[in-house]
């Protein structure tokens, strides 16, 4: 991911890349990574959003009804550890994962982005304080933090969102800070200072749009990690709780029968894999689309 930013071009020729926002989507789509990423992500998102509606009509069972004995091979993908339809639960199991991942990412982006921009913009002691706090939080192992928080507060949805969101915040803050530092010395920021534009507006109108590139890349990456982290916690039994239908939890519940009734695990593993790969490809494609580097095949 080269995030090389072309600063002032001494030649006087207009830069080759236009910086209009609508161009980004098109440029993402123009790359094969971007296309595959969008398609993979979209497939899983559609599955997660509309799956719950399809679960009962497609399988004849709700995700909570008993279809057969546990780990039986009836139905398309057999039954799970309680004899419920794997397919029905699979169709129902992506929604919360997706919702919480998006919320956690959003929280991390807001907190981390604000802190990072503030640190870079304010400089001086505030910068040092924020960055040292960052270092401290970074040094606390993410999983330990999650384990403790969940044990103390219980495995509730908001706890997951807050824990994952906050563990992302310092990393996002770093990115936001360095991106801000890269633009903060641009003369248009100085110009805004000169015209005595209110500082919050400088952050919002002059800085934010110009670091949107790296931030959106980071958002994509963080979404990937959020999905992984929440699924991992569910896999460890600390995330979503029974009887919820959830991909991570399904892996945890059905892992035991991996060798005899693998579908309860493999469907979910597959969906999580596709989703995370999709979002990661997307993040990478956004990175290429927003980095104003020279033409690369």
């Amino acid at each position, binding site marked *: 991911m080269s995030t090389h930013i072309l600063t002032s071009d001494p030649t006087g020729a207009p830069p080759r890349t236009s910086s209009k926002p609508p161009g980004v989507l098109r440029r993402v789509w123009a790359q094969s990574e971007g296309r595959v990423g969008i398609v993979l992500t979209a497939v899983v998102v559609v599955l997660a959003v509309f799956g719950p509606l399809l679960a009962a009509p497609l399988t004849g069972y709700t995700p909570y009804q008993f279809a057969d004995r546990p780990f039986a091979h009836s139905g398309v993908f057999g039954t799970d550890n309680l004899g419920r339809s794997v397919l029905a639960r699979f169709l129902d199991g992506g929604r919360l994962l997706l919702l919480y991942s998006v919320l956690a990412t959003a929280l991390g982006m807001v907190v981390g982005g604000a802190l990072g921009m503030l640190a870079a913009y304010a400089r001086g002691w505030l910068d040092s304080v924020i960055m040292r706090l960052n270092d401290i939080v970074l040094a606390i192992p993410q999983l330990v933090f999650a384990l403790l928080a969940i044990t103390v507060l219980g495995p509730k949805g908001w706890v997951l969102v807050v824990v994952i969101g906050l563990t992302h915040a310092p990393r996002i803050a770093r990115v936001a800070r360095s991106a801000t530092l890269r633009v903060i010395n641009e003369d248009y920021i100085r110009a805004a200072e000169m015209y005595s534009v209110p500082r919050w507006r400088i952050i919002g109108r002059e800085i934010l749009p110009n670091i949107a590139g790296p931030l959106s890349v980071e958002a994509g990456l963080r979404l990937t990690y959020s999905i992984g982290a929440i699924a991992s916690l569910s896999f460890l039994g600390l995330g979503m709780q029974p009887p919820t239908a959830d991909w991570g939890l399904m892996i945890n519940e059905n*892992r035991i029968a991996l060798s005899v009734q693998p579908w309860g695990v493999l469907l979910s593993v597959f969906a999580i894999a596709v989703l995370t790969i999709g979002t990661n490809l997307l993040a990478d494609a956004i990175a290429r689309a927003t980095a104003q580097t020279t033409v690369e*095949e």
Partner: protein
Amino acid sequence: MIAKLIAKRLAVSVLILLAVSVIVFAATLLLPGDPARAILGQQATPERIAALNEQMHLDQPPVVRYFLWLGGLFTGDFGLSTSANAPVAVLLGERLGNSLVLMALAALISVPVGIAVGIFSALHRGRRSDSAVTWVTLALAALPEFVIGIGLITLFATSVLKILPAVTMSPPGQPVWLIPSQLVLPTLTLALVVAPYIARMMRATMIEVLDSGYIEMARLKGVPERRVIFRHALPHAIGPVAQVVAIQLAWLAGGVVVVEFLFRFPGMGQALIDAVNYRDVAVVQAVSMIVAAVYIVVNLAADIIGIMADPKLRSAAA
């Protein structure tokens, strides 16, 4: 100058570690549960509980306990495990060794492989082999470790090729590495998680370096390609790659938890999950501090490597 710089990093690291210790200690205070009761059991009398509380300084105010604990850390005394009723150091010693073996193996594989793949890919930029590498590393980098692990188990242990053990299991008293086959899947899982990041970073750094003016100049001087890469380009990748390797090593210290859980590997991560479940505060604290220390040490090492690799800083020292 350089010594001063390193000394400053060192001081900052120590301060961060101290801050982390405060946070870890405070967080573990919040854990519900009663250590004395956990040790003595459901039917313990209040007197015995009080006596044990006193023995473990649990009757003291948190601040005093923090300093007692911190003092203990310096002397290698991590406290008493409530679930095992034994010193944490004894409990963790062997497990720490196991985890380190696993992490070292994973690092030993992923770092050179990652670097080699990254360089290869950068040199073949734009070609088919490069885009294949890009796709694979992107996909692998996205996958949570348990997904990779389950994939490998399905592939090599339970469903397709039943050739490797799915779980770690050592005969009593034998270290895990005496049966190498059971280390294969956990190591591979960790390596597959870590290597893509290193490869991607290496590729990006190399490409940036290869695009720079001095590389073009070297070529225009007639310097052979091999020398361009190894003498002109590679030294510039040391710093950034040391950073990413450090981040990945630090990740290993934490990420090993899930992998150990998955493969039932008797390491630190296992101990951590057990300890949290059994409210074994001292063990949780110890593991947290160990992981934090690993994080800080590897990052410090990377910083120092970065400083040493930068001639500006190096020469300023002279």
